[in-house]
């Protein structure tokens, strides 16, 4: 697989102009050239955060202190590690799903006519492999690897967090979650699905009155917070200053860098009057965290699906999204391949996403190199791309809910007067 990646990498290197586009687009927060700048400052004995462009965490800078010579290799290895972690995680998850399905069939929880909705081991066999390949061969992953975006490393941490959670190790899960949070703050919201999954694994019912539920929650939260504190203190001792807190997390939260990327923030805040920007930053940032609670209520029985939705939401609404983030949640799509028959707009949405991905470099070229188009053209595509992603996610969400409904109520619904009924989302 590494060879394949190397080849794709070499091929991509031919498209230098395109790579420069990628690098420009995912510049903020996530490029090794920025890390190089930080390293140079560090070597000179200056705080790396004293400049305006370095916004990586101290651990990253120390990691690259040793590995900067092998940067390409590091990124390829992290990608492969991510794929392996996802493979193992999904393999385990599929076993759990199958076991649960068997149990529910034995308990007669399913309606009698849903035989065609039942998943078979045969069709589930290749899903882990598909997930790994989907991640490795996804053009977005290749792009972010070519651009040497540190987002790749964040993806690896999140993948390991998922693996640890699905394997049921509360301690490792908390540690990796803390690492992911430390890296980019937003994975904080993954706390809820991880907790739900671990509770489910321990057969602890999610009830607000039950004592064991609270006990376990406290335990997990304590583990998480402790590891977070340890990591942050470690960073402090590495640099001997707290500079990194405002420079990393303040940078993520207050969105001072408005370099164009594929997200929603830059254009709005470039256009906005300065004194409104605080309010709108809050409104925009709330999006990431806001959906966690209703989703947790609705999907408390299906924490892994919840996790998928939450990762997707993060990658859409985060302040400096990159194509690597998209690659991570897209890797999960094969896991939900059984929802295919319930998806309504998958054809249109995939066309929209592909077209937008192609138009990004074209409009970027017209805006930056040719100078004939302007930022509005590019932003229009960004907007369409994000709307496409949101619709895709809601389509999956709705399909998931529909399938669950059909499983319990039977596939062929009848109204009270005997005619065929239909589920309508209103």
């Amino acid at each position, binding site marked *: 697989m590494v060879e394949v990646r190397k080849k794709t990498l070499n091929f991509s290197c031919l498209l230098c102009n395109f790579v420069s586009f990628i690098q420009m687009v995912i510049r903020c927060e996530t490029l090794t050239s920025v890390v190089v700048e930080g390293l140079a400052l560090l070597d000179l004995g200056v705080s790396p955060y004293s400049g305006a462009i370095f916004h990586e965490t101290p651990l990253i800078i120390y990691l690259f202190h040793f590995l900067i010579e092998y940067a390409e290799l590091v990124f390829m290895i992290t990608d492969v590690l991510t794929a392996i972690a996802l493979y193992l995680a999904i393999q385990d998850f599929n076993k759990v799903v199958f076991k649960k399905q068997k149990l529910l069939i034995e308990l007669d929880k399913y309606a009698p006519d849903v035989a065609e909705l039942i998943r078979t081991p045969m069709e589930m066999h290749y899903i882990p492999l598909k997930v790994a390949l989907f991640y490795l061969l996804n053009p977005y992953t290749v792009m972010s690897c070519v651009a040497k975006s540190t987002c790749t490393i964040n993806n690896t941490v999140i993948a390991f967090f998922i693996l640890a959670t699905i394997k049921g190790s509360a301690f490792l899960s908390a540690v990796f979650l803390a690492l992911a949070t430390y890296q980019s703050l937003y994975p904080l919201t993954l706390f809820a699905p991880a907790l739900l999954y671990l509770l489910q694994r321990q057969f602890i019912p999610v009830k607000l009155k039950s004592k064991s539920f609270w006990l376990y929650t406290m335990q997990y939260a304590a583990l998480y917070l402790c590891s977070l504190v340890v990591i942050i203190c470690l960073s402090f001792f590495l640099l001997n200053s707290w500079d990194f807190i405002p420079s990393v997390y303040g940078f993520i939260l207050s969105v001072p860098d408005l370099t164009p990327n594929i997200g929603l923030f830059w254009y709005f805040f470039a256009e906005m009057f300065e004194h409104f920007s605080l309010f709108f930053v809050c409104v925009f940032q709330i999006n990431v965290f806001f959906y966690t609670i209703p989703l947790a209520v609705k999907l408390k029985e299906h924490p892994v699906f919840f996790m998928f939705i939450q990762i997707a939401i993060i990658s859409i609404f985060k302040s400096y999204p990159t194509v690597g983030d998209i690659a991570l949640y897209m890797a999960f799509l094969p896991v939900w391949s059984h929802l295919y028959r319930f998806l309504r707009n998958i054809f249109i949405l995939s066309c929209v996403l592909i*077209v937008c991905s192609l138009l990004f470099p074209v409009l970027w070229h017209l805006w930056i190199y*040719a*100078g004939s188009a302007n930022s509005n053209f590019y932003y229009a595509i960004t907007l369409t791309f994000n709307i496409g992603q949101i619709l895709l996610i809601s389509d999956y969400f709705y399909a998931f809910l529909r399938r669950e409904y059909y499983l319990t109520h039977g596939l062929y619904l009848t109204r009270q007067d005997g005619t065929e009924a239909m589920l309508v989302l209103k």
Partner: protein
Amino acid sequence: MGLLSDPYRRRALSRLVLRLNTPLCLLSYAAGLGWFLALAFPPVAPRTYMSENAMGSTMVEEQFAYGERALSYAREFAGHKKKAGGLPVAWLEKTMWNLGLEVYKQPFSRTLPFPDETRERYMVKGTNVYGILRAPRAASTESLVLSVPCSEGQHNNQAVGLMLALASYFRGQIYWAKDIIFLVNEHDLLGMEAWLEAYHDVNITEMQSSGMLGRAGAIQAAVSLELSSDVVTSFDVAVEGLNGQLPNLDLVNLFHAFCQKNGLLCTIQGKLQRSDWDTLPAYAHSLQTLLLMVLKQGSGRPQGDHGLFLRYHIEAITVRGINSFRQYKYDMSTVGKTLEGMFRKLNNLLERLHQSYFFYLLPSLSRFVSIGVYMPAFGFLILILVLKALDLWMKLSKCDASPVERLWDGDQAAAHGAAEESRPGLLTLVPPLLICHATGLTLYFLPVLGQHVATQHFPVSESEAVVLTVIAIYVAGLALPHNTHRVLTGSGSDRGWMTLKLLALLYLAMQLGCVALVNFSLGFLLAATMVPVAAAVQPTGPKYLYAVLLVLVTPAVTLLLGIFLYQELIEYPVSVLECWQLFLQAVAEGLLDHYLYGSIVFPFVAIFVYPCWLLLWNVLFWK
């Protein structure tokens, strides 16, 4: 989202798309073409206006009166040119130096990938000479360019003369806030490319040139002048640049404004504007102008030396003096005054030209169609592909669902087997896709790489070899891949070709959409020809009719027809044989444009459009 999530409305919508597909497609095509034809109708196209404040009304008073001096310079230049048998570098340097300019020369050389037979050049060596007039009122941070190509024979001597006269006049004025570069470039576009690359210190083509010694800040605008007679009757302006890029409309407006002020006749695409607009001939006239612009822009060739400036973010136009058999002639002083006025206005610029449009079509010099108005014409054409793709998708998902439902009562495994059998899978599509793209890549790489082999084995020259190889591969592609899918057995079903067609349609839509943003005309010409046949083609029905139609809309035939149409429009009709000669020439020049200046038309057609067309050809011969 109500429309997409409410199942009843969805069902109604999908039924509409399925049942009324063909009428909707026809309607859409008619709407697209109709919209395009309507663009030439004056009420649709608003009048041009100057957006840039700094160039507002024509408030400068031109005083250039060195018309006679320009002519004497021109004669002297002609004499020295004849003597030197090329650009008289030493004389030019001396003259410019005497005028008080900072003079530099820039030798360059370039070996073409294959000999250019129309211009008879292969290993090109030349020298650009340029003089910088330093602005007395500002530091050298910004500059303007007046460039004159030095071509062979008696051409363009007057342009050089006028440039020198303008330089001597400009030198005496105190109001310049931008440096002015007077450039004489040899070997037209090649020299221009060499000069621009050296000026910006980049090397994007394989041009060899010495470094540049003198610079004059960021170039804000450039005018390229071509003038071959002592008097002119009218001025023609060329706007289309490399890859169909256009200069800011304000620059064209500026030229138009000064022509009007000085009473000069000015034309675009060689067509004079008519005073009436509400008659049929007037409409036909502006449609001709529009079509000429579309054809020229679609070719992706620079229509003058200005075309290469645009890539560097520099607004530029080419101005050509025409001497035809009209009664009113204008002397050099009037021409000089017009240029003086333009340069003084450009001198007033506070920032780069950016206020006005960059994407436009010009049905006449005083009317323009902006991107928002012309894009729907293209959108309607693409809509056909989308509608057809939706139709195919719904048919495909229907055949997907029906066998499973029918067989569900029986054994589960049997049902699965049946479903698997009826579904050839995406694997069958891989060989056609791969082979089509391999043919495309061969078409792109082989002609230039294999020219020496071809000249050894066949009695042809290099450039003939290249062109003939292109045509040979192109035609061979038709024979090769149409039975590639038979490599895998069991694919002989409707599903196979439907999936392939769906893929080809979406692929075509994406390509055309992307290219139309960069070069609208190219996208529109390809869409107008390819889309209807692409939507109609299928292995059942009148196969030979489809085959003929499909061959008729292949990009090569489109090029041939485009040349024919172009010759008709410039009122210089050609016979079929001449048209074929022009076609061969156009192919060679398309390749040269790509290798010399980086035009995208040839690689785009070879690597993307042609394979996509081959996919459709595959659909037609699917068995």
